[in-house]
């Protein structure tokens, strides 16, 4: 049982309550992603689990035992930092071996584990270099290597990919997912990027202002967002959230419809609008359509072959099966 539980955990910095009391359970072997806009307290939550910050109240349970007062090193967790936090004066080998050295393992065992981790992460030929001589992706792998050798109960990742360029990010995303499949160790991953959350997670925890808005699998969150915040945050491009007469017609304060659930036609449809900016991705095209009925332009996904010129009139038809309805508190109506 390598379970992590948070019970009524809260955190305040001085008078400012960053995280109001919250409960969360993380099962053994799960890949959990904390996602939310910057400043939502997701990193703080991770640091509370790691023990780098003290909880203001509540309990952190690891394997069923209260770990609230246990120092970070003895919680059996390994963390990968946003800046990688490699030790610049040590070689890659010594960086990866550092936690083992601190644990007092003998040299032969240190060597064995470092070589093993290096093989897994394709770092064997870089072992004698300094971190300063490595590329961003390689540094990231060293940081992961330093976490792996400890054979931790769980891995904690604090926005590990945000310093990498887009292409590398996609690659590292796959590598981390693959690592999770191979090690099947619990991983907690913090990111502000909902694409990372959707692609990697078994379970997503959406946070806003320190409050958990929704917990669920990526598809649960996509199909049934609990409120307008989650609806707008999960999915790319964002869900169109509409208020006013059209919403009232569906007996709701706000209705949400994803860009992929709107059909576009030049002849007939429910809503009439004028084509604004169009973004061509090749496979798809995203049109921004200005409708006189709605305040904000609607985003609509269409096939990449469809060509509509700026300013032409089009008709839109929402797929009612995928229409989301929310009340005046932003909560989902069923």
């Amino acid at each position: 049982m390598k379970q992590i539980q948070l019970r009524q955990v809260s955190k305040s910095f001085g008078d400012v309550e960053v995280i109001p009391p919250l409960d969360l359970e993380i099962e053994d072997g799960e890949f959990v992603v904390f996602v939310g806009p910057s400043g939502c307290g997701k990193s703080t939550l991770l640091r509370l689990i790691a023990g780098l910050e003290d909880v203001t109240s509540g309990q952190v349970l690891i394997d069923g035992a209260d770990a609230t007062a246990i120092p970070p090193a003895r919680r059996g967790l390994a963390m990968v930092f946003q800046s990688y936090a490699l030790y610049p004066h040590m070689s890659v080998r010594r960086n990866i071996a550092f936690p083992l050295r601190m644990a007092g393992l003998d040299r032969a065992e240190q060597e064995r584990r470092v070589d093993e981790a290096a093989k897994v992460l394709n770092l064997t030929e870089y072992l004698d270099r300094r971190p300063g001589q490595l590329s961003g992706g390689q540094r990231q792998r060293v940081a992961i290597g330093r976490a792996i050798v400890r054979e931790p109960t769980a891995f904690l990742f604090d926005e590990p990919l945000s310093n990498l360029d887009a292409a590398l990010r996609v690659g590292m995303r796959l590598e981390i997912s693959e690592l999770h499949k191979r090690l099947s160790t619990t991983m907690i991953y913090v990111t502000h990027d909902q694409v990372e959350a959707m692609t990697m997670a078994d379970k997503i925890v959406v946070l806003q202002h320190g409050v958990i808005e929704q917990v669920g699998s990526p598809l649960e969150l996509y199909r049934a967002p609990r409120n307008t915040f989650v609806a707008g945050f999960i999915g790319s491009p964002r869900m169109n959230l509409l208020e006013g007469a059209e919403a009232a017609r569906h007996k709701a304060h706000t209705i949400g419809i994803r860009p992929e659930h709107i059909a576009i036609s030049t002849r007939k449809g429910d809503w009439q609008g004028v084509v604004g900016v169009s973004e061509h991705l090749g496979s798809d095209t995203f049109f921004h359509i200005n409708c006189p009925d709605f305040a904000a332009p609607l985003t609509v996904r269409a096939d990449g072959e469809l060509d509509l010129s700026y300013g032409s009139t089009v008709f839109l038809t929402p797929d009612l099966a995928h229409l989301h309805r929310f009340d005046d508190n932003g909560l989902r109506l069923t």
Partner: protein
Amino acid sequence: MATQHSQSVARMMMAPAVILLLGWMLVPLTMTLFFSFKKYLPLRGGDLGWVGFDNYVRFVSSSSFWPAVATTLIIVGGVLVITVLLGIALALLLDQPMWGQGVVRILVIAPFFVMPTVSGLVWKNMFMDPVNGFFAHLWRFFGAEPIQWLSHASMPSLVMIVSWQWLPFATLILLTAIQSLDTEQLEAAEMDGARPLGRFWFIILPHLARAITVVILIQTIFLLSIFAEIFVTTAGAFGTKTLTYLIFQRVLESQNVGLGSAGGVYAIILANIVAVFLLRVVGKNLDA
């Protein structure tokens, strides 16, 4: 530099400063060299002609030469050890968040603003005076016989005074270095199981290595030529005669300009050895 044109303009702009500095350096240097080959006794006949390397031989073979070199090295070494060790300790303390941080930091830096002559006199008269000094009162309060600081413990006293002056410099450089350490590195080390002492030894100290080198080299340059502190406290007595002080005595007290100049040339050679060393090491550190 971007173009040939901007390069030559830059040279012209720098020329006045370079020429001024060269003159500043070359005139005294040439005069020292000139006098070092002469027998020149201002009050006993003035310029008595060329004597070749006589002054150089006499300066080195004087019974005061090697003790003076030893004294210089002991003061430099002692002050370096004390300022670096205490500097690291103070920097670590000052890096901790505390109430009145700004005021405390200014107070720590304060000794650096006191002129060497003044601080030497303050230490001599207010702290180390065997009758009325603070230390004498302190010793008597505990029923002990006051120490005759500047005569019986002259070298430790001097090292103490000079360390007090240079500690702020070391602290300041080391504090800024500590503050530039990425906190995530310390947190990573904490997660990796390093205890506070381990974090200091494996993370903070290696990070400070460059700053410590800078402190050591810069201080060495300045400490090689300390003079005022010795002049106002012991006046070179009780085994506190450094190379600089020996030169001063040869030129002004013995009124032997030639001999003193030869000593000056030795001092220049010593300082240049250190300067080359400094440029090598510090320069390399700054590149990395």
